[in-house]
């Protein structure tokens, strides 16, 4: 059992938790993930590590409430326990040797992009961060990003904060203005990563994306997280989660991620109804 020592609501659908897991905190690197089960009959879901404190033995996760499991997780409070919490899994992001990088984050993907930006900043790289959200209410980690970025651009779909438009618009502008990046790191919804890659391909800038497919064990056992990269089948859990974005078959990944959509929707509704009943009772 793993105790939640801090919980922070970042926006109406995104929550941060710091979880006591000293062995994982000791080893965790940006880009890696954990797998958790909220309770005894829970499913196993992967979440990327957003931050870690080796001394205090804490691992930070940031998650969006999208289904039954994240709904249940969000109902836990400081002092409560998560049933299972295992990691750090996956290969850490390669950040060594990079001098100038554009870090692009979309929505809750910013939670994954932030520790990478932070690590790059610590290593002395010039970091340009481009982050996008649907609207002002959903913005997370703005100050954190600013603190580790040499340039920071905030985008919103409706213009309620930052500039109106997509992250690809902002990235394009930066590249067109003459910024030369060793690498672009893009983390967010699959469709966002796909379009960032289509853009950077035109300029021939190496682009790394972080894939977060459906997974069970996270150690290479089930193969459920497989995706096609450069025509070859890869397992996101052991070969990734970072991949060369110009080689990833995003259309296939989007299809695969929708495998259990009807089941998930049903489970989520049931869970919400259950919590509503609890509130009424």
């Amino acid at each position, binding site marked *: 059992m793993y105790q939640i020592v801090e919980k922070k609501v970042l926006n109406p659908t995104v929550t941060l938790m710091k979880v006591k897991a000293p*062995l*994982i905190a000791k*080893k965790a690197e940006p880009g890696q993930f954990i797998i958790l*089960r909220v309770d005894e*009959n*829970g*499913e*196993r879901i992967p979440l990327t590590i957003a931050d870690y404190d080796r001394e205090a033995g804490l691992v930070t996760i940031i998650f969006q409430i999208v289904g*039954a*499991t994240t709904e249940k997780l969000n109902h836990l409070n400081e002092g409560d326990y998560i*049933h*299972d*919490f*295992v*990691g*750090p*899994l996956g290969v850490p992001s390669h950040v060594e040797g990079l001098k100038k990088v554009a870090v692009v984050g979309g929505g809750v993907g910013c939670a994954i992009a932030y520790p990478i930006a932070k690590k790059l900043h610590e290593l002395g790289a010039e970091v340009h961060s481009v982050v996008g959200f649907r609207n002002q209410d959903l913005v997370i980690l703005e100050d954190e990003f600013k603190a580790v970025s040499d340039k920071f651009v905030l985008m919103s779909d409706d213009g309620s904060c930052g500039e109106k438009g997509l992250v690809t618009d902002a990235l394009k502008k930066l590249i067109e203005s003459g910024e030369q990046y060793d690498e672009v790191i893009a983390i967010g919804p699959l469709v966002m990563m796909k379009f960032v890659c289509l853009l950077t391909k035109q300029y021939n800038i190496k682009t790394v994306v972080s894939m977060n497919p459906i997974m*069970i*064990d996270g*150690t*290479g*056992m*089930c*193969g*459920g997280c*497989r*995706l*096609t990269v450069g025509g070859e*089948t890869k397992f996101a859990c*052991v070969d990734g989660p970072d991949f060369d974005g110009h080689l990833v078959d995003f259309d*296939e990944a989007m*299809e*695969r991620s*929708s*495998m*259990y959509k009807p*089941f*998930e929707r049903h*489970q989520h509704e049931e869970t919400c109804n259950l919590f509503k009943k609890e509130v009424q009772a």
Partner: protein
Amino acid sequence: MPNMSLKKNEMPVQDPQVRNHNFSEVALGYTEEQALDEAERCLNCKNKPCVGHCPVAIDIPGFIAKIREKDYEGAYQIINRSSSLPAVCGRVCPQETQCESKCVRGIKGEPVAIGRLERFVADWHNAHATEKAKAPESNGHKVAVVGAGPSGLTCAGDLAKMGYKVSVFEALHLAGGVLVYGIPEFRLPKAIVQKEVDTLKELGVEVDTNTVIGRTLTIDELFEDGFEAVFIGSGAGLPRFMNIPGENLKGVYSANEFLTRVNLMKAYQDGSSTPIQHAKNVAVVGGGNVAMDAARCAKRLGAENVYIVYRRSEEEMPARREEVEHAKEEGIIFKVLNNPTEIVGDEHKFVCGMKCVEMELGEPDESGRRRPVEKKDSEFLMDVDCVIMSIGTSPNPLIRNTTKGLDTNRRGCIITEEETGLTSREGVYAGGDAVTGAATVILAMGAGKKAAKAIDEYIRSK
């Protein structure tokens, strides 16, 4: 006077048309009368060929003699001296190719039903024994075991009985390895596995779940933490695919994924939050025990038609005879001498068919089995909405990639000394599927046993 019947006492089983709709155990176990009657068939012969063909060398005539005396706990204690998991082995061991294959009674008629008797004894113990296993006095030495599957649990049990302080590190949230994620409830109830694990805990074995060696901790860190030896029993968990078009369509599973969802995550129960596809027509590709398990699970989840698609003939199937028979009784359709060439998807990228070709058997290949050769112009389409690939697994690379000086062969299996399980690293031993590639539960247990003995000798000689 021994019972000279040429036939074994038959195992009572659930009716096939009932059991293919539930996940309760198929084989119901001998009654006391049946066990006593069967025990009388053992001649207690001098040579004991059965013992020599048991990978963990259980004193088989010894425990059967105790059954005849109705001393079932005594029988259990005899088995327990050699095996840490009697209730498991009585159910999943391929006795027909091991102990029972050399039984003198098998020369004329059927061999003694050793496996069924072992199961009877273990179940009797689990139902009646009140005394808990006692932890022996500690010898002050610490040993780490990686993986809580059959080889790891056996190694841990043997070392604990010798007084070692053993910690087992398990990547999943539950101990048992393939016994909990792979073998289905209807062949091996999970409560039985849990009971065996609990017994080990009573012996003082510590089980750390949610700990991935190679990620959370490395082998080197285990030595830094004061463990004097390490046993690696991490299994062969990496699923293989055929590399044919359409394998990433929705509705294509590895047998590992399908079985893990069903068994470990209990996706067949209403209360589970783990989803699984409830398909109508399922093709399971492969002919091993895992393929039979997957097919029978798919049937129980409500599929109308479940096919075993295998490229050789039924004779070459690696699955146990009994599993094949059980599958057939439950209505699994065998399509042998057929090989998939492509999985076809609909406009939403869900599986809607599988293209196959017919095969015929040619000259024997390096495995000694006749090589399947494609028949010309024999392509046909199967109407399926789910495909489960059950064509084998390879060892997981996590440990070999994070442990310096650990030699592996070109298939990624850890290289060990046959008799001891010693790897190329001092103090590091290995056994089970991580060494052999996918094999059986009992072979893994045998390897765990040998390694426990070698680890004891190694630590005492230091």
